[in-house]
């Protein structure tokens, strides 16, 4: 048998797989946009924002085993930071700032992304430090409270100094502008008309890929092993000399940083932030993505994100016409059935695939 062909065959296959994967990522918005229009590409953009969030949460819940029910707070931190640093809100409220920045506050995205990551990581430590002794349900309750506290702060920080503009939210957040290309406008690039949602898609996909890379590298490292050890048996882990407190704080900070980046992108993409975007429901959706896909397993998390981000839209688009063709009229509001099916899908998944749809397979049985 020819040894060289047996050795090169899997490598060639892997290379082909990577090529097809790259092609799929590049072509996805064009195929989807062609089939369903820009609204679907927009859904895809949101799926990628959720993916960044879910990958961050996966570090906390999946690797380190810390059940965080208020993860959306870090998304809010990133989003509000961006809204404050790149919108007319602050300069319109504070004359001093307006005098310093006569052109208005327009901080570049290159600065905003690292700042959002850092600030969110700081908030991650703030949440992590007092909760180090808590586990499971108790931690879940405290983190849930933390998420709500952040949201309520954003809602009420409009008096006596108007910082967050309260429930009205902050509008006219600057869109992302990279190398002079404004992502909010349709651009003619290389002879192609590229709509804004496509441009954002490529930005978000690039960021998500960076985050996936970071997660994969961390997972297969000394730190990643230590996180899993803490998750599996905290007492045994500390008996092996692992500083479980530091490891947990690191997980909180790293996860939160990704949440912050995602939030910053959300604010620029949407152009508007308000406290209502950061409700408990959002925390639960992100957690559901991680749990449904497969905790601690990156391909599983990606699958969970795509499914849970696309499913509501798919159902919304199909349930109305389906009833129309079956009964000649829309009997039940598609929105109600959508929630029902969504919940049912989660219950079935937990009953029949408790480890997730695509769980990690470590070692042979």
């Amino acid at each position, binding site marked *: 048998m020819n040894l060289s062909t047996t050795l090169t065959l899997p490598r060639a296959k892997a290379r082909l797989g990577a090529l097809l994967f790259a092609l799929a990522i590049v072509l996805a918005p064009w195929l989807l946009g062609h089939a369903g229009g820009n609204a679907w590409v927009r859904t895809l953009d949101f799926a990628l924002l959720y993916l960044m969030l879910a990958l961050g949460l996966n570090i906390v819940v999946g690797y380190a085993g810390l059940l965080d029910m208020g993860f959306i707070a870090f998304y809010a931190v990133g989003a509000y930071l961006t809204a404050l640093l790149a919108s007319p809100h602050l300069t319109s409220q504070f004359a001093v700032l307006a005098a310093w920045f006569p052109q208005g506050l327009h901080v570049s995205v290159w600065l905003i992304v690292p700042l959002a990551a850092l600030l969110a990581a700081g908030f991650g430590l703030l949440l992590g430090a007092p909760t180090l002794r808590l586990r499971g349900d108790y931690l879940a309750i405290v983190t849930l409270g933390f998420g709500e506290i952040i949201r309520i702060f954003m809602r009420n920080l409009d008096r006596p100094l108007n910082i967050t503009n309260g429930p009205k939210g902050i509008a006219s957040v600057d869109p992302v502008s990279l190398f002079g290309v404004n992502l909010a406008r349709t651009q003619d690039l290389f002879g192609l008309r590229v709509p804004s949602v496509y441009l954002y898609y490529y930005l978000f996909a690039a960021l998500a890929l960076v985050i996936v890379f*970071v997660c994969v*590298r*961390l997972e297969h*490292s*000394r*730190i*990643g*092993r*230590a996180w*899993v*050890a803490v998750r*599996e*048996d905290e*007492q*045994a*882990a*500390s*008996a*092996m*000399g*692992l*500083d*479980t407190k530091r490891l947990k704080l*690191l997980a909180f900070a*790293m996860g939160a940083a990704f949440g912050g980046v995602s939030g910053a992108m959300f604010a620029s993409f949407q152009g508007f932030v308000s406290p209502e975007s950061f409700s408990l429901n959002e925390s639960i959706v992100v957690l559901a993505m991680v749990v449904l896909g497969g905790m601690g397993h990156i391909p599983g998390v990606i699958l969970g994100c795509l499914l849970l981000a696309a499913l509501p839209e798919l159902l919304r688009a199909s349930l109305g016409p389906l009833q129309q063709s079956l009964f000649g009229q829309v009997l039940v509001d598609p929105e109600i059935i959508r929630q029902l099916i969504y919940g049912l899908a989660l219950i079935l998944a937990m009953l029949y695939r408790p480890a997730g749809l695509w769980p*990690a397979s*470590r*070692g*042979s*049985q």
Partner: protein
Amino acid sequence: MSTPLLQIDQVRKQFGGVAALNGVSLTIAPGHVHGLIGPNGAGKTTFFNVMTGLYTADSGRFMLDGQTYAPTAVHKVAQAGIARTFQNIRLFNSMTVLENVMVGRHVRTRNGVWAALSRHRRAREEERETEAVARHLLDYVGIGQWADSRADALSYGHQRRLEIARALATEPRLLALDEPAAGMNATEKQQLRGLLEKIRDDGRTVLLIEHDVKLVMGVCDRISVLDYGTLIAEGSPQDVRRHPAVIKAYLGGAAHV
């Protein structure tokens, strides 16, 4: 006599009104297998937990290799050089056998987040070395061929060996085993004895807490006996076996031997 590897003086630990440890002292010479025995409830496990930092002692002095150490946090004791196993085996079940031992290397390695992301040359070297040491230790305890299985797929006796390999990976100055033979059948006990003798012959110091008198008498160089939170006897296996207080503690009543 050379400086003792472990010297613990006058440890007291009170739970409410009960004195679980009433001034217990223990000295272990380097290279010895030291047994700690006693009837149920004598305070063996409490002593073990105090020594390894799981409980905080009310008073006492702790010296490891001529230096005082404060058993205030479990991970610090492990860093200082005492590695333990658990009476009821505690492995990282969803990880592979190899990964379990690699976690044991954590305290003796340095790779951080940046090393994980960049995988620079030194980081890769350390990672390779971690794996090599772990594989060597698995061979050493005799479960090398199961390196890539999940830890919870191993048989009971092999899980115990894995726990020992994981503890050895921390390069301990003292290996402390909490009832390693508990729940083992005769064959597994025989194999465990072989492994303990091998570990002793390689010059390691071991503290063995054990119920199985045959195993303790066969393997240990010295034995301390606890009863009701006080040390009632210490000496070679032969001495301890004939000690009247020991016989009384184990059989009850006055010693008529």
